[in-house]
């Protein structure tokens, strides 16, 4: 029965799958995680700030993002960003953003909601004496956050942040709705072109599974190492 399958199609399309597809997927994952972490930390700081209005805005943002399916956000954003760009810059026509930039912005905004909750828990895990000691030494609020609170919060939350990044790595495959050749998109294109759906999707699943699995084990190792240091 396996005779009717052509697994050689995988070998033939490997350069395309990895050089184009996987590069795109990993770039999108890394940049989204980085942007999401920075943006998410800002949201977490807003939520924890003494200012009620800032906290409310940040809270609403997080709830809003978490109540929408990611595919929908990706889809909507792709169509909306050109118009938002037009509105922001005052251009006469919708500005073209490109599928990559659009999906990157989407993922950063979406992941920021999740990362912000992780960072919030991280910041709250630091005892109140730490910022007090930093303040007593004359550090400003910003310096206290930058040099004392956030480094510790980040370190405490690193395993959770990385686990969320693995989820993000899998979620980036949703950009296929914009027909972007990420890894899954590339595999899908080859599958359609050569009529080798089973082979290509099987291979794609295997690759996602392997990478995520190895990364998870890595995170677990890291977790136990951090636990010893503390």
């Amino acid at each position, binding site marked *: 029965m396996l005779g009717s399958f052509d697994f050689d199609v995988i070998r033939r399309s490997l350069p395309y799958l990895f050089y184009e597809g996987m590069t795109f997927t990993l770039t999108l994952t890394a940049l989204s995680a980085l942007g999401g972490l920075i943006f998410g930390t800002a949201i977490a700081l807003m939520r924890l700030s003494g200012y009620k209005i800032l906290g409310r805005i940040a809270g609403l943002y997080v709830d809003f993002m978490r109540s929408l399916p990611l595919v929908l956000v990706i889809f909507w954003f792709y169509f909306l960003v050109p118009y938002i760009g037009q509105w922001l810059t005052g251009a006469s026509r919708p500005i073209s953003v490109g599928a990559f930039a659009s999906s990157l912005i989407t993922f950063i905004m979406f992941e920021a909601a999740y990362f912000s909750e992780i960072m919030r828990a991280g910041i709250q895990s630091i*005892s109140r*004496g*730490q910022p*007090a*000691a*930093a*303040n*007593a*030494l*004359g*550090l*400003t609020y910003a*310096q206290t956050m930058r*040099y*004392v609170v956030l*480094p*510790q919060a980040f*370190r405490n939350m690193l395993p959770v942040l990385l686990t969320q990044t693995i989820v993000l790595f899998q979620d980036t495959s949703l950009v296929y709705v914009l027909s972007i050749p990420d890894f899954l998109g590339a595999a899908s294109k080859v599958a359609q072109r050569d009529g080798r759906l089973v082979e290509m999707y099987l291979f794609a699943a295997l690759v996602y599974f392997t990478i995520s699995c190895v990364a998870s084990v890595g995170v677990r190792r890291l977790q136990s190492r951090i636990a010893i240091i*503390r």
Partner: protein
Amino acid sequence: MIEISHVDKWYSTAFQVLKDCTTNVAKGEVVVVCGPSGSGKSTLIKCVNALEPFQKGDITVDGTKVNDPRTDLPKLRARVGMVFQHFELFPHLKIIDNLCLAQEKVLGRAHDKAVTKGMMLLERVGLKEHAQKFPAQLSGGQQQRVAIARALAMDPIAMLFDEPTSALDPEMISEVLDVMVDLAREGMTMMVVTHEMGFARKVANRVIFMDRGEIVEDAPKDDFFGKPRSDRAQKFLSKILSH
């Protein structure tokens, strides 16, 4: 140096932690604040460098009004050292970096100068060889000595101690007190919340006794230990000195 006048503080409208507290600490003076737990002594000392806000009254440190909204609080705090009950060293930084952080970021000292100063102070508290370790690798007494060195690295005009030995095992208390006694004898202005009456006897100029948010007794050391005027202070002393 430190003038506290008619300070009131409420945690909520119903609960008043400080009631009309008035006292002062002159330059070079060592003042010990004692009293039962919950009497507001830690809160009072934290008001001095504005770690705790208060609603009424004034506190002035070296001519700068703490409760003036125009006061640059980080700048003021940089000049007043504080030592906490739970040390509060920064666990993600090496000992020497704990000492250098504020010197560099607040005072703008060059890194090598900060390190030199830091090493000098570590030597002074007898922990020079631990400079490259992390706080968690040190005992409580050692951590508290580092915390004192960290505060001294800022060249403070006064030092505040908030129960510096309360979280320590008994055998480590004296190593911290020794550092504090040296500091007092060198003429550092100090306000110390502590139950260590031995320390008070040795170096304090005055002892303040607080109860339920009020300063009940504010007397020169010999008067305080000789004949406390209030019943509450007498009771407190007899309790903590009976063993």
